[in-house]
């Protein structure tokens, strides 16, 4: 199949043409992109001019507006190029505002997208949708939300990843030096299950007065906390704390690291039925999720840590918190029935952002 230069398009974009196919087959598109080093290894939707224009129309604005500049390639993430990647990922146009909001947020300094993209450690940008827009747009906040089967979750997360790969230049072994990667680098998008939460919506707990919002956080894959027997907060959260207190996680070494706690609805109900608030959960985990100073000398990132001076002042028997403040435990509810929760360790030297989601 011959690929040719396809003549002039908008300035700054490469337009290609397939001159011997009027309706390219999925196989042909797949092989073409693979040969060019594009894509995530899965079949793609061809980003024709028509499809890209349809995507752009779903979030009106200047198509050449630069939403962010993404490292390490320093690619300019214009609305148009983001639309190209949204089409590639198989997104519906009504999801485009979520993607543009996320890409704009990726340019925020506090996320340290450059470090997260280039690091040897595994991480991916978790995208959480908060508010009534989550249900209205068809995102999954219930059973299997971290897994396959929902088009919104799967394609929106995938679009963000494709932008980071193509525009940001973080391809395995090149711009990204992640030693092993992780499955959530294919797609990592969920919705908060506000209906099942005994507390206020996560974005409101962060001080954001908006109907809808998204959160972006660079984290590891979810680590399961399986507790089928506890009938009180102490039991449930002791199980969670045991998953948090891990020598080999970056949050143990970064000092100021966030730790995301995604409580399953049944665990959340057990905790709240005892009168515990979200702040109680945070405080308990801060006190409980600890490792001894002596354990921390053994491996992990010992010697490379970002601890403040006071953490070095203790003997080996002292139990140290894996993060420095209760508020760094970011807690919200998601998932379906069943006695499971998830711990998502942050990459460490990154701070999540929660921003309003404005829909046209």
């Amino acid at each position, binding site marked *: 199949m011959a690929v*040719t230069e396809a003549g002039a398009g908008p300035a700054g974009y490469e*337009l290609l043409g397939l001159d011997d196919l009027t309706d390219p087959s999925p196989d042909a598109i797949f092989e073409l992109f693979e040969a060019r080093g594009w894509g995530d290894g899965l079949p793609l939707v061809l980003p*024709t001019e028509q499809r*890209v224009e349809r995507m752009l129309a779903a979030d009106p604005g200047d198509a050449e507006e630069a939403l962010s500049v993404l490292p390490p390639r320093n*690619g300019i993430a214009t609305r148009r190029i983001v639309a190209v990647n949204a089409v590639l990922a198989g997104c519906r146009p009504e999801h485009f505002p979520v993607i543009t909001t996320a890409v704009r947020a990726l340019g925020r300094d506090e996320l340290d997208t450059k470090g997260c993209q280039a*690091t040897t450690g595994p991480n991916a940008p978790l995208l959480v949708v908060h508010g009534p827009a989550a249900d209205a747009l068809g995102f999954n906040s219930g059973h299997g939300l971290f897994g396959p089967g929902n088009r919104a979750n799967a394609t929106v997360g995938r679009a963000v990843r494709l932008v980071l790969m*193509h525009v940001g230049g973080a391809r395995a072994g090149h711009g990204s030096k992640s030693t092993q990667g992780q499955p959530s680098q294919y797609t990592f998008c969920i919705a908060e299950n506000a209906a099942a939460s005994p507390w206020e919506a996560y974005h409101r707990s962060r001080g954001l007065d908006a109907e809808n919002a998204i959160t972006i956080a660079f984290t590891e894959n979810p680590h399961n906390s399986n507790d089928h027997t506890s009938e009180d907060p102490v039991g449930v959260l002791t199980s969670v704390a045991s998953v948090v207190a891990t020598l080999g996680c970056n949050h143990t070494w970064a000092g100021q690291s966030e730790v995301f706690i995604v409580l399953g609805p049944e665990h959340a109900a057990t905790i709240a039925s005892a009168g515990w608030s979200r702040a109680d959960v945070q405080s308990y985990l801060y006190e409980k999720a600890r490792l001894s100073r002596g354990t921390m000398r053994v491996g992990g990132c010992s010697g490379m*840590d970002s601890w403040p001076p006071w953490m070095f002042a203790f003997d080996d028997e002292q139990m140290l918190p894996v993060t420095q403040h209760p508020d760094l435990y970011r807690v919200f509810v998601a998932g379906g029935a069943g006695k499971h929760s998830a711990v998502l360790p942050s990459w460490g*030297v990154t701070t999540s952002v929660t921003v309003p989601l404005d829909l046209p």
Partner: protein
Amino acid sequence: MVRFYAPDGAVDKIALELTPIRNRGPELRIAVLDNRKDNAFLLLSETAAGVAKHFGAGPAILTDKGNASVPAPESLVAGLARDIDLVLTGSAD
């Protein structure tokens, strides 16, 4: 013909003006900024020693930025820019 977009787009290019090395020869002032990645200090300090020997310069000043994953403190960078002609470092995260 079916036309479609390449997915990567343009790159934001930042023009850099390289600072000329002020002193060459024995007056060359060299520093190592260890990024704290494994083996970085070994590689950088050995390279610095080789450069110093080539120019007949004095030994390198050894500094580090504490952690591979965060930017070096601005005060450290400012001091190197003021006092050093050639800094060897690694990009890390």
